[in-house]
């Protein structure tokens, strides 16, 4: 897939094991971290634009490094990069909660804000995993 200039290059910070799993299968809204069975599942997928100047909820690098400390047997910190087409980004910006988070630097895909569309297109999207 050739990226369009209006497509978004997004980064998700996590551990290497999870980055590889998401790269292969897409974000899993039912994902629960080991030991978190009583908590609600992830439900969404948080990313930051690769050219974002700041993110007030934390950068992908910080998230990845912190997550790798919590889960030391998951291969260390990594960034999953994915290029998301403009039409899916437009869904994010029309959801009031996701739009507010986007103004703070975080691009969040929830069922209300493009997650289903992202998952449906996932196998067509350009992706790569970057070890930190």
């Amino acid at each position, binding site marked *: 897939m050739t990226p369009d200039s209006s497509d978004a290059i997004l980064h998700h910070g996590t551990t290497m094991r999870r980055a590889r799993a998401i790269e292969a299968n897409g974000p899993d809204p039912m994902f629960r971290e080991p030991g978190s069975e009583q*908590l609600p599942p992830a439900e969404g997928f948080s990313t930051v634009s690769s050219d974002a100047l700041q993110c007030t909820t934390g950068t992908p690098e910080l998230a990845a490094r*912190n997550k790798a400390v919590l889960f030391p047997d998951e291969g260390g910190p990594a960034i999953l990069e994915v290029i998301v087409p403009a039409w899916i980004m437009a869904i994010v910006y029309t959801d009031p909660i996701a739009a507010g988070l986007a103004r703070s630097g975080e691009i969040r895909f929830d069922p209300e804000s493009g997650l289903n569309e992202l998952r449906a297109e996932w196998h067509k999207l350009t992706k790569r995993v970057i070890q930190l």
Partner: protein
Amino acid sequence: MKNLITDLLSAPLGSGWTIERLAEQVILAIALHEPEGEQASVEFVLDAVTVTDRQSQRLMRPLVACLAQKSAAEEGTIPSLYEGCLTFQRQSRGAPVWVIGEFKNTPGKRYVILRRSKSPPPHRQAATRQVAVVPHADDRLSDLPPASALG
């Protein structure tokens, strides 16, 4: 007892809302919440297990992450997104107050606890005491032996 955090999270969001503005609203609401009479300082708890409305569920994680980033920036420390202490100094009726607490977003636990305090958190008090007993730099220099005595 009203829970200021859950009230703010479930309230309608303005058209131009941002997560940092919401975080500041939470901090200020607690800073301005004076306990009644002899009532001890109230703890405000937001726990993922008890959050039921969809808006609050969606806002909880980014709010906690933003509070963590904001506290670290104000304290000059390295932020941790998944576990740590929170400290914010604000003004209430012209006097300094602190909003202090802790948060966790680790396996099995996802919560934030905040409370108002008229005194700084213990690590700040220790720093203040330390500064208070350290003589002024000029005095410390005058305590040194003359340069010639240093060999």
